[in-house]
């Protein structure tokens, strides 16, 4: 007798039961904090955690780790899908990355035992296998009551001594996309790149707790809004309007970076039109030595078309820092911006440049300095803000850089700032435009200090003319302390060629990372 082929085999029956159970559990996990909470976010125009992961990763590439994880507290098991933090591995523009995305709809994405284990796993795998780590921050902080009492503390905190250790083996990129307190904030400020969406808040703890602690009403935006972190703390490298823009910014940042510290950054095709503004670049520089201009026009003209990605644009604005490409290769650009404070470097600019030096050196990114500074800001306010310490942190960082350093003096380079901006052997090659002027102090001051003459005194103008001649680039070039005097229009070609000359051939583009354990903020 023929066997009935429509009857499922015992194995098929078992498979169907398993599939059904699996699908039920999966759907439960994917339901996150429930339809109502998700609908409220959508109405507010904010992506949920899974939408964020989908937007960030190449289609279909996300492999989740811990989909079926829940709170370790049995009472919360049914209401804690993925324990409020979604983790896994995805490809971002073709390259693998580990991702942690906070799901605020599940218990406020608060930190607990299980999701702490998930974060630890992502960090461990990303570091050991050499891929970037991305944090999408939005968390109410430590979960209550789990953390309460000495037993709670002993169970949940301090069991991983390396939890907040950074040795910069892999790039970390983060976004603050909502209310972010506790460890979500810690990971953001420890990252190499941190983007904030307007409306988000990054702080140690919530405004409610802050109000209880100091007995006054605290406005969340004042406590940790984008303006504070973009302009005052410098913790935000970039501020954007939407979740999508924030995730695009992370993609863009990572595209400049290697996957880990033991490889050179990726190379991209040179966009058409790169360098087209070079014949007219001198138009960016005023004829008068005392007039200001925006150095970012010069940067954008020199580097590959549309490749300049400025970091911390609203903080320490006297110093411009940003990633870019030259001939398709990633470079870090550090420039003085005379548009702000005449280019005189202040404490915020020192901190900003120091952190950028650490970033570039840790990830094998050659550095280009464009110099036009009358010196450091001096005076009582600068001293109160610890200017000597900040200037020397900057200087020490510069001396520990092991990636190629090329400096070009556009106009002014005076005093100690001459050294901080790569003067002498503080860069591998020092070039200058014929418009450069280099000395210890501005000639107007020097005539007073050296000759004791005021502008109204007889002989002042003659001495000033003498000083001005002595500050021209030709004298320093004659003793090979400036190696090249270049015409402004040749700057891009000079840098392209010099980057090739200074390629780290012996180590395949990899530096020594002497600042890998430096602070994550200054």
């Amino acid at each position: 007798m023929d066997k009935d082929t429509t009857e499922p085999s015992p194995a098929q029956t078992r498979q169907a039961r398993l599939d059904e159970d699996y699908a039920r559990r999966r759907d439960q996990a994917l339901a996150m904090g429930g339809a109502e909470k998700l609908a409220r976010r959508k109405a507010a125009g904010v992506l949920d955690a899974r939408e964020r992961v989908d937007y960030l990763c190449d289609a279909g590439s996300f492999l989740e780790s811990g989909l079926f994880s829940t709170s370790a507290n049995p009472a919360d098991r049914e209401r804690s899908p993925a324990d409020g933090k979604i983790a896994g591995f995805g490809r971002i523009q073709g390259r693998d990355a580990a991702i942690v995305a906070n799901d605020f709809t599940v218990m406020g994405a608060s930190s607990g035992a299980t999701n702490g284990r998930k974060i630890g796993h992502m960090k461990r795998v990303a570091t050991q296998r050499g891929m970037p780590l991305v944090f999408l921050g939005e968390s109410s902080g430590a979960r209550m009551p789990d953390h309460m009492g000495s037993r709670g503390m002993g169970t949940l905190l301090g069991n991983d001594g390396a939890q907040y250790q950074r040795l910069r083996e892999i790039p970390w990129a983060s976004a603050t996309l909502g209310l972010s307190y506790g460890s979500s904030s810690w990971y953001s400020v420890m990252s190499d790149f941190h983007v904030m969406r307007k409306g988000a808040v990054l702080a140690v703890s919530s405004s409610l707790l802050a109000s209880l602690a100091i007995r006054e009403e605290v406005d969340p935006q004042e406590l940790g809004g984008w303006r504070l972190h973009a302009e005052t703390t410098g913790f935000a490298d970039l501020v954007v309007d939407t979740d999508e823009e924030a995730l695009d910014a992370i993609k863009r940042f990572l595209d400049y970076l290697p996957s880990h510290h033991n490889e050179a950054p990726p190379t991209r095709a040179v966009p058409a039109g790169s360098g087209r503004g070079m014949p007219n670049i001198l138009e960016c520089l005023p004829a008068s030595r005392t007039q200001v201009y925006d150095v970012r026009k010069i940067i954008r003209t020199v580097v590959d078309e549309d490749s300049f990605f400025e970091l911390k644009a609203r903080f320490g604005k006297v110093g411009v820092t940003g990633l870019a490409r030259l001939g398709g290769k990633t470079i870090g650009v550090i420039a003085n911006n005379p548009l702000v404070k005449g280019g005189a470097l202040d404490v915020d600019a020192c901190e900003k440049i120091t952190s950028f030096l650490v970033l570039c050196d840790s990830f094998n990114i050659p550095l280009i300095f464009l110099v036009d500074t009358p010196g450091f800001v001096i005076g009582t306010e600068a001293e109160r803000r610890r200017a000597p310490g900040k200037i020397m942190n900057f200087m020490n960082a510069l001396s520990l850089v092991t990636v190629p350093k090329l400096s070009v003096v556009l106009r002014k380079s005076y005093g100690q700032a001459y050294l901080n901006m790569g003067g002498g052997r503080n860069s591998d090659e020092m070039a200058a435009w014929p418009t450069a002027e280099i000395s210890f102090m501005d000639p107007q001051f020097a005539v007073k200090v050296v000759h004791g003459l005021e502008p109204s005194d007889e002989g002042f103008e003659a001495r000033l003319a003498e000083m001005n001649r002595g500050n021209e680039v030709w004298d320093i070039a004659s003793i090979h302390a400036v190696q090249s005097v270049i015409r402004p229009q040749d700057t891009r070609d000079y840098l392209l060629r010099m980057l090739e000359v200074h390629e780290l051939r012996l180590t395949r583009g990899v530096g020594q990372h002497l600042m890998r354990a430096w602070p994550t903020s200054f």
Partner: protein
Amino acid sequence: MMDLKAEVTGSVWKILATPGQTLEAGEVVMILESMKMEIPVVAEHGGELVEVCVTETDAVAEGQVLARIKL
């Protein structure tokens, strides 16, 4: 009302606008001198210049209010 503040310590070199004048966003109200550089003080937003709080050659400190604009 919006205060225009000195971004740097220095002195007032030239005042280019007068009270009552309507300012466009980006217009230079005065020029400071600091570190032998000319530092323009720019109206971030357009409005009426209500008051100029300094005179030429005055020494100014970082953060000092230089002028007030009614938005």
